[in-house]
């Protein structure tokens, strides 16, 4: 796996925030700015959506991102494509090596399908995404929550077509950094899932940092 470090120093960031597990974040990232997400303690899934800040219906598309690079995993060089077919952001540094965009987000409803009816009451990413979307634009709703990125999550696909959730390839302090190709909004759910190894059964905080264009 390819690892690429960034030259940007945390001390020169214009924005820093630690997001606890189970919390959400909605924030605008202007064209040319850099967004870094840090897996502070390791093996945490950061469920992330992007959309055009001026046209929320032009949003991150897992299928268009996969199709454009003819590859499943996201890493340095991956352009995060929109449904309209143009890049929202480009990954410019990555010390984790690969990120998932097949696994989607957990929801109370999907937890009843995946685990048991008794898991219905557990906090899930869809709730955080809806809160983040409402925080940015109250008129947004479930229609606007499409298939997301899972930074730091490891969902390998085998050549015979099986898909598994495995312990993360990430570790404490690993990060992914991307440059906004236009004004975008990031909706983030720091995943609260306790029922599978995507967070090593122990959801932990992440940090987001933003730098102005260099």
């Amino acid at each position: 796996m390819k690892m690429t470090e960034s030259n940007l120093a945390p001390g020169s960031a214009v924005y820093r925030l630690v997001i606890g597990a189970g919390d959400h974040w909605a924030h605008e990232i202007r064209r040319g700015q850099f967004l870094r997400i840090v897996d502070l303690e390791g093996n945490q899934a950061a469920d992330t959506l992007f959309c055009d800040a001026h046209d929320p219906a032009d949003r991150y598309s897992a299928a268009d991102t996969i199709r454009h690079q003819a590859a499943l995993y996201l890493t340095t060089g991956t352009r995060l494509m929109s449904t309209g077919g143009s890049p929202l952001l480009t990954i410019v540094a990555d010390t984790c090596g690969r990120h998932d965009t097949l696994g989607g987000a957990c929801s109370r409803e999907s937890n009843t399908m995946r685990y048991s009816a008794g898991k219905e009451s557990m906090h899930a990413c869809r709730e955080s995404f809806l809160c983040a979307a409402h925080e940015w634009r109250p008129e947004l709703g479930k229609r606007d929550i499409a298939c997301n990125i899972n930074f730091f999550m490891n969902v390998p696909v085998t050549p015979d077509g099986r898909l598994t959730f495995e312990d993360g390839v990430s570790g404490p302090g690993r990060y992914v950094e991307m440059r906004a190709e236009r004004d975008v909004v990031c909706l983030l759910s720091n995943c609260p899932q306790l029922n599978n190894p995507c967070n090593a059964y122990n959801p932990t905080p992440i940090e987001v940092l933003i730098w102005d264009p260099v």
Partner: protein
Amino acid sequence: MWSAVVSRGKTLRLTDVGGGANVGLLLYNADLPVERYNMPDTLKGQHTFHLRHPLCLHSDMGRILASITADSAGWHDTVCGCSDARLVEGKFGVRTYQEARNEFYRNGLECFLIELAKWGLGRRDLVPNVNLFSKVVADEAGRLTFVPGHSQAGGIVDLRFEMNSLVVLNTCQHPLDPGPYRAAPVLLEVFKTPPPPHDDPCRVSCSENSRAFLNTEAYWALRAD
């Protein structure tokens, strides 16, 4: 391109008439289309990267929209999405209606948006689609390869609907298909089918599907059907 509401208890049979077809497919709960086919829940619920009999197409609400009750292809792509105008122009150039009449070049994204618009839906309702009859494999590094000639002439796939579903589809070719431009014909037929029994192969294919069938039946128990 085609769209229609197909009710619970009916089966849509798609036949690849001449071989090498691709059908880009999206499904919505026809009664409340904010519930829709969900690629991640479909894949992680069934621990698979591709669809085949006896697997199912899951909605994003923990329910089954449709079950694959028969399937001669054995592998249907779920992750590559559809072509758009830029892809078609880059691969094949431009062929306008003015010069080619109804042989002009179409693309998957435009076809989806045209059909969605007929039901009051649009860009906010676009999600990764299924590509029936198409096979794409991944290597250890995640690089994808389209497998040519996967679907044979006369091949079928049967979708038995467990929810009243808005079916939106088109026959634009798979976006990673390296072959020349084509839109291979597909025959659509709808049959009445009985409710899935307790030992239905799709219901019992994994415990996640069994629970999703229970969720789907709980949904219907609350409605006058």
